[in-house]
């Protein structure tokens, strides 16, 4: 029962094969059973979920239908949920119950989903391993000593362990694609502005983008169809019709031109991952895609630019957590400065503080031009690289990560080595482009992902290529789950 995709659940609900309550109860008991060791969930809202499941069943019985009526999912704990604790993985928001919903949460609710709970994440989405959560690290279902990736590690692990068929995630530097790759699932980061950021707790506003994570590209299409769209509450949201993601899943790949960045296929890449990619390329060629090498000359500066821009924005975005209006407040503050410093010092974890310090530094007088402004210029060059490439090709193919899931604790001592894990995913965030990670092999019994990056608003084509790939491969069906 737990091994069903969203597409299959929709079918089962529609045909009366099972009810929303049945599938939700089943998954909730599975969460009960698996979560203590996996720690993919920060909060499980069983009661509320079953209420919503019953509502969905009643509505269906009364002849109502909506695209995801009664389908169970979970939300990354970065999305504000009205009346349900939203922690963002932080002690700062350990007891924060927002009186409003994120737009993504509203949209999915309107589509009929039943939310089973809130998934674990790196604190304020800062991390690539889920080791930075105040609520403890998440364990990769593929190996008890492995990280699930981050920051949407809880979402990725929950889907991989089949505790839930689909989850929301957010991606600032790879936080959907990298954990999807590490956990053997599919995840898409849409074009910046395609999915509303309203109510999604900001890490780095010019990079953050929400998206779906699920076993298959088809399920991602089903979720994204409901998540995407213009939102007047988000000034950076784009007013443009949403494509029919599901309708174009089976389009032919004949004539598809794919670029292989020469900078991605170098000695830095794990040999086995390279081999998996070559095999995947061969599959796509069989379906009519052609491949050419493309040059992205400034890609190696993505990580340096990102680790200036993202901390700069986060240092400012996180200033609102000051212990005055909501969130953690230290005990017995001596004065206002003490209130600020201890509330923030005790409420934020080490990585968050580190990024706040770096961000404060690169924006401060005397360093602004050398770091922040320079990074914005490099960002432009990286974006230009893609613009040139997309004159030649329809999309770019490469690895999602340089290695399979690393061991818990392996990179936590050295932030820079941790940051370099995002080397292939960060460029799409800097340029605002859509990117998808698709399972494409196993290396040492751990899943690895293939990343496709498209031009602005080509989510439909990316999902189409990923779906066709999944029609001829079965990597996405492999699961560590018993």
């Amino acid at each position: 029962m737990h091994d069903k995709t969203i597409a299959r659940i929709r079918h089962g609900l529609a045909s009366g094969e099972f009810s929303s309550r049945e599938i939700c109860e089943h998954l909730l008991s599975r969460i009960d059973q698996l979560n203590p060791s996996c720690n993919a969930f920060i909060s499980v809202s069983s009661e509320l979920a079953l209420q919503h499941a019953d509502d969905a069943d009643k509505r269906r019985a009364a002849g109502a239908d909506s695209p995801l009526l009664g389908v169970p999912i979970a939300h990354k704990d970065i999305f504000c949920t009205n009346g349900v604790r939203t922690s963002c993985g932080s002690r700062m928001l350990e007891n924060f119950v927002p009186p409003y919903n994120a737009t993504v949460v509203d949209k999915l609710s309107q589509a009929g989903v039943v939310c089973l709970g809130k998934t674990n994440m790196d604190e304020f989405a800062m991390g690539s391993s889920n080791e930075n959560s105040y609520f403890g690290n998440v364990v990769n279902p593929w190996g008890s000593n492995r990280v699930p990736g981050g920051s949407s590690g809880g979402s990725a692990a929950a889907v991989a362990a089949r505790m839930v068929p689909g989850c929301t995630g957010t991606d600032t530097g790879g936080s959907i694609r990298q954990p999807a790759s590490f956990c053997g699932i599919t995840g898409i980061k849409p074009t910046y502005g395609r999915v509303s950021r309203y109510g999604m707790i900001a890490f780095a506003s010019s990079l953050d983008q929400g998206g779906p994570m699920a076993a298959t590209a088809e399920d991602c299409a089903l979720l994204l169809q409901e998540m995407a769209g213009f939102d007047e509450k988000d000034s950076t949201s784009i007013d443009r019709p949403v494509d029919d993601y599901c309708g174009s899943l089976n389009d032919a790949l004949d004539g598809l031109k794919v670029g292989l960045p020469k900078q991605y296929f170098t000695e830095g890449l794990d040999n086995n991952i390279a081999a998996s990619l070559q095999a995947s390329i061969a599959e796509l060629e069989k379906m009519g895609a052609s491949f050419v090498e493309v040059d992205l000359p400034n890609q190696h500066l993505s990580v340096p630019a990102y680790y200036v821009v993202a901390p700069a924005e986060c240092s400012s975005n996180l200033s609102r957590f000051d212990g005055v209006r909501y969130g953690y407040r230290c005990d017995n503050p001596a004065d206002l400065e003490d209130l600020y410093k201890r509330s923030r010092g005790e409420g934020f974890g080490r990585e968050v503080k580190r990024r706040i310090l770096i961000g404060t530094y690169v924006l401060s007088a005397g360093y602004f031009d050398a770091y922040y402004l320079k990074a914005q210029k490099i960002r432009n060059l990286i974006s230009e690289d893609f613009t040139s490439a997309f004159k030649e090709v329809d999309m770019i193919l490469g690895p999602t990560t340089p290695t399979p899931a690393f061991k818990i604790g392996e990179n936590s001592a050295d932030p820079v080595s941790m940051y370099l894990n995002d080397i292939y995913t960060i460029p799409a965030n800097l340029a605002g482009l859509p990117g998808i990670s698709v399972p494409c092999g196993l290396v040492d019994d751990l899943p690895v992902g293939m990343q496709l990056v498209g031009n602005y608003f080509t989510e439909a084509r990316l999902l189409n290529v990923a779906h066709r790939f999944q029609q001829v491969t079965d990597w996405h069906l492999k699961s560590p789950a018993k």
Partner: protein
Amino acid sequence: MAVDEDTVRAMAHLARVQIDPDRVAGYATEMSNVLALAEQMEEVDTSDVEPMAHPTHAVQRLRDDVVLEGNEREQFQEIAPETNDGYYLVPQVIE
């Protein structure tokens, strides 16, 4: 740019975060390493490049001047650390 411990303390003060005195040296090293990573950007001459603040080239959309919200004080103050008589409270500020 290598960051020294005074700089760490100055940034921590600007950002109003207390950091453990034992951790200052560690932050100094980590910040220095990240900044060294950032300094790789210096290899490219960007004197003719426009800074890019947003990934999209859209312009700001404007909202009509309409009041849509009323008094929601109760629900917002329910989650506040300390309030009295409708005010949020903080330790006395001396002006």
